[in-house]
């Protein structure tokens, strides 16, 4: 038993969970700020970014050290690879939280009567992130799979938002700024759903060794046949 190595793996997992906690809090604050137009919350989201970025670098360094020093194999190797990818996804979710907070600041005192259900989209996207992280904590591939199924709903809501807001801009051009801000928020939430999907796929890869990215299990032509 490589006790020191196991301790380092546990430490890597713990650090990633701390990072996940910060990111989850940031995205929740950003979406709450949209509903309440609370600019203090927006500020808190912006302030969390340097800490998230610092954690991303620390986790990458720890993972890199483990790869170089311990030469992990099999499930340990898959775990470290999954952590590196999840780390990058979490950092991007942190960026998206900041983007949303910035757009909420822009919206400021503009009308709250935006005809798209951003709170529902936010609820779905944050639920995906929470579930993906829970599947990581519990090494649960079934839970991870259920995250993948939610992504279509998020995409659909985002598509609907695009159509509705596009129509709003055409009908009421004076509300263009407002609609564009909402559009960017919707787009960022859709990206949060994509990152949650990536995290869930990485959990499946870590636990079972299966690569389910981009529907990898379906038949696809080799790359050289598609590059023409």
């Amino acid at each position, binding site marked *: *038993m*490589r006790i020191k*190595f196991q301790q380092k793996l546990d430490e890597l997992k713990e650090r990633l969970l701390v990072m996940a906690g910060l990111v989850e809090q940031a995205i929740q604050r950003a979406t709450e700020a949209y509903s309440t137009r609370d600019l203090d919350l927006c500020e808190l989201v912006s302030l969390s970014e340097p800490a998230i970025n610092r954690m991303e670098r620390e986790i990458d360094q720890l993972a890199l050290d483990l790869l170089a020093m311990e*030469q*992990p*194999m*099999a*499930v*340990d*190797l*898959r775990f470290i690879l999954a952590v590196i990818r999840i780390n990058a996804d979490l950092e991007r979710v942190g960026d998206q939280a900041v983007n949303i907070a910035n757009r909420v600041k822009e919206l400021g005192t503009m009308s709250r009567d935006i005809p798209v259900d951003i709170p529902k989209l936010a609820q779905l996207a944050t639920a995906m992130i929470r579930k993906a992280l829970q599947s990581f904590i519990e090494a649960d591939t079934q839970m991870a799979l259920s995250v993948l199924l939610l992504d279509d709903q998020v995409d659909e809501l985002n598509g609907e938002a695009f159509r509705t807001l596009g129509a709003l801009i055409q009908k009421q051009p004076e509300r263009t700024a407002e609609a564009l801000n909402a559009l960017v928020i919707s787009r960022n939430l859709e990206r949060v759903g994509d990152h949650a999907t990536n995290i869930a796929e990485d959990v499946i890869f870590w636990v079972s*060794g299966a690569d389910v990215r981009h529907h990898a299990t379906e038949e696809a032509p080799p790359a050289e046949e598609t590059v023409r």
Partner: protein
Amino acid sequence: MGVDIRVENLNAWYGQVHTLKDVSLHISANQATALIGPSGCGKSTFVRCLNRMHETNPIARAEGSVRMGEIDIYRDATPVEIRRRVGMVFQRPNPFPSMSIYDNVASGLKLNGYRKRRVLDEVVERSLKQAALWDEVKDDLKKKSGASISGGQQQRLCIARALAVDPEVLLMDEPASALDPVSTAKIEDLIFELKCQYTIVIVTHNMQQAARVAERTGFFLMGKLVEFDATDKLFTNPTDKRTEDYITGRFG
């Protein structure tokens, strides 16, 4: 050219101790196949059965079928004929210390009755080139003894000696475990070069080495072949829990 090796229900004993239990596997020609496992798992016994060296120990015996191409090595050939087709390299380089570099490489041929100087010169040069040693020793072929060169060079000399008799199979029992990293890298590069011409079976404790050089890898445990698969599959996503426990260091 290399040759396929098909092993079926191979069992081996040292006295009463059953060291290999019903091992069956297919080693493909012109590939490197690595065998890994903890000490005493039977992997070295297994390779020694592939050139009938196992039976040189008076209390040892083996049963089962080992087919090398069309020949069953236990039924259709003598041990001497088999060792002519199967070269072997050991953990510690073992050149003949009183012989020159040249005579070390030519020794197998001379034993087989070759005497013509021109033939011997050609084979010695070709074998040393194949073993990536020619440039380092060509000026001292008859001046220096096999034991006077570095450990890494000695091991390549032993590989050249094995190649000189033009075998089809090359067995390597931890060929780099006594060497420094630079010499190890040379041996690994060599394995890469040689496998297009020979069937290579390498026993190693170094899993990264197995991952680097072999197309397929077998994991032995307590005399049994637990798992045999493509090397990348075995090291990233093994099927058997025991393999995973061993390669991740959770074993024991």
